[in-house]
């Protein structure tokens, strides 16, 4: 087989993929202006908000991790800001069946809850018009002002009838640990509407990124993201979120993945020792995770990714928890190695699309001819 033929075969293996983590970039605030009401349009003008660069500290615009070198766009264009490029680089290349957009714009992290709500609403409208309406394969997460449950619920309700919004996104580090009851109205609605909570790496930087304070370097912040995921799962379990909302699903997006082994061992042992403190937690955390939590697979924190995934399947006793993702345009892998090539066929297929279909109720529904009037 020639090099090219082998390469084609490698790519073909991804046909029908459901890519659970794509990042469209808001090119600038000007694109959101049409979706703001008069008051906020005036505020943008008076305060010159449109001159602000709302790139997140969690993803410095030019850091190597934030964009794969061969996925950069022309001078001055933010990586991820072109639908055409996303199609070329990922959707068409892998013959993807679906791609789920997770927009990491700054709307959700304003301290002002009102400002956050206005810009989240605009971001969701813009995502619908510029992405969902222009490529039928695309689906999206609803961006919300998570620090105000009432406003967040209103934004989710606004999207409820559009089945192309398949998930609610929250940053892994916000103002309150995710299990706290202030968030429960969001979870109650999510459960009712069949929307998983997609917890994505990233911080609103309300607090130091580590329990020992502020590290000097970005690489330390990024590494600490996996710890944030552990803590938030522990928070949701301990507060009883999954006991209260038995049909709720959570998807950990861009978490690093391999920390999960250590997490379930420690969480199970801790629970056995202190469960009297949380009587509503009646099952081991590992069982709760198996029923309620899914994980996107990029990045895979391991030198040998195939070995890492098979080891993890062994440890968590399930091959249904892992969801394909490219994390486009973030630089997590090279060439077409979004999944390890030597993964067994069954497991490859489950990760590629079957697990996502089982995890996102709206994905299966919106896959059929739309029955609801939009």
């Amino acid at each position, binding site marked *: 087989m020639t090099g090219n033929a082998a390469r084609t075969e490698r790519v073909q293996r991804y046909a029908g993929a459901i890519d659970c983590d794509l990042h469209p970039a808001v090119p600038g605030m000007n694109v959101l202006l049409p979706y703001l009401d008069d008051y906020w349009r005036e505020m943008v003008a008076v305060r010159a908000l449109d001159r602000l660069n709302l790139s997140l500290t969690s993803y410095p615009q030019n850091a190597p991790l934030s964009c794969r070198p061969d996925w950069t766009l022309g001078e001055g264009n933010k990586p991820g800001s072109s639908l055409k490029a996303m199609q070329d680089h990922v959707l068409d290349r892998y013959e993807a069946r679906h791609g789920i957009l997770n927009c990491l714009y700054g709307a959700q992290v304003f301290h002002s809850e009102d400002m956050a709500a206005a810009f989240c609403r605009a971001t969701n409208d813009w995502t619908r018009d510029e992405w969902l309406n222009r490529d039928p394969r695309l689906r999206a997460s609803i961006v919300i002002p998570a620090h105000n449950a009432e406003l967040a619920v209103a934004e989710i309700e606004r999207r409820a009838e559009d089945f192309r919004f398949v998930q609610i996104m929250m940053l892994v580090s916000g103002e309150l640990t995710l299990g706290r009851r202030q968030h429960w109205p969001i979870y109650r609605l999510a459960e009712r509407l069949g929307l998983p909570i997609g917890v994505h790496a990233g911080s609103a930087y309300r607090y130091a990124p580590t329990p020992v304070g*502020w590290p*000097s*370097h970005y690489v*330390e912040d990024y*590494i*600490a993201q996996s710890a944030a995921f552990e803590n938030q799962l522990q928070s949701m379990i301990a507060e009883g979120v999954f006991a209260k909302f038995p049909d709720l699903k959570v998807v950990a997006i861009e978490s690093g993945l391999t920390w999960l082994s250590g997490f379930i061992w420690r969480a199970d*042992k801790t629970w056995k020792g202190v469960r009297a403190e949380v009587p509503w937690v009646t099952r081991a955390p590992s069982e709760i995770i198996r029923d309620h939590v899914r994980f996107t697979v990029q990045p895979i924190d391991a030198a040998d990714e195939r070995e890492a995934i098979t080891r993890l399947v062994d440890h968590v006793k399930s091959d249904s928890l892992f969801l394909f993702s490219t994390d486009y345009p973030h630089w997590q892998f090279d060439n077409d190695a979004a999944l390890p090539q030597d993964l067994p066929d069954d497991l490859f297929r489950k990760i590629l699309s079957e697990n996502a279909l089982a995890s996102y109720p709206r994905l299966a529904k919106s896959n059929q001819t739309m029955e609801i009037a939009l």
Partner: protein
Amino acid sequence: MTVMDVERGQSAKYQLQVIDCDIHPAMTSWKEIHPYLEKRWIEHLAVYGSHLRHAFSEALSHPRMSPDAARVDAYPEEGGPPGSSLDLLQKQHLDPNGVEIGMLIPLRWNPGSQRNLNLGVALTRAMNTWQVERWIKQEPRLRASVLIAQEDTEGAVAEIDARGGDPNFTQILVLPRTDEPLGRRRYWPIFEAAVRNNLPITIHVGGTGGHPSTAGGWASYYMEEHHMVVQAMQAVLASLVFEGVFERFPKLRIVIMEGGLGWIPSFNARMDKHWNRLRSEVPQVKRPPSEYIRNQVWFTTQPMEEPGSSAALIDLFDRIGWDRLLFATDYPHWDFDDPRTAFKANLSEAQRHQLLYGNARTFYGFDE
């Protein structure tokens, strides 16, 4: 026959030989350190007490699930808190469990977290002397740890140099929840002093640095707080790696104490992967982070991981490195690891001996 007699019998049968790296001595009354504390500080403590970065001056914000976080059978008959009776420590732990050497890790007063640095330094000085006078002079199997008030670098270095030549002290003790991540430059004189005195630095769970225990806010439950001690350890190691501390001090040795083990391989891989991507930010880091960890960091075993199968546990030890594991019981705390039953794996006698005894003997230089 009492429970203790049964344990003694087992001890003889298995010929346990143990070095316990984590024993918590307590005070019958805080006045025990008065002989070693200036009058000024005795008065200060009586009037103002501890001054830390949390809500209660004398209690933890996440109350533990048992009194004093202790085993229920560890209360001395003569009164006083668990860990305060040498007699009970000997009868309940050192003798039946074959402990040849036991390391004292005093946690009372939290001197490294005191906001009043002068008080912190005075407390470390007093408690260091207290360890020798109250414990080691009565029980030669015990060893002391040099407590330091790390936020006062000068005071900390003076205390390290003062104890460095005293063979009763085997290590320097720091709690991970410091004011800033431990790798930052303000702490480097402490690393210099540690290397100069050939003492490892042990990081034992604890401290109150004021930062929330997660990047997303404070935990509600002890169940969460207990999980998160792992993350503090990860942040300390990442800081030491990426600030270039290991590169700058190749003879520095770090012990991560009571931080768990299950996270180490994935954390190493995570550091390596993202260092590889972002290394232009940290040119001071010359080698993959996991190499520094492999060469300069040791881990105590309690609380032992229980992955559910012998093979998974042995796989974990393989990936961490068997020679990096130091046995600890955490006596008298509730999650005490018994040397007979802690390792739920099919270990050979040689492996068991290495974990319970050999590694610590080599690491601390007890065989020299």
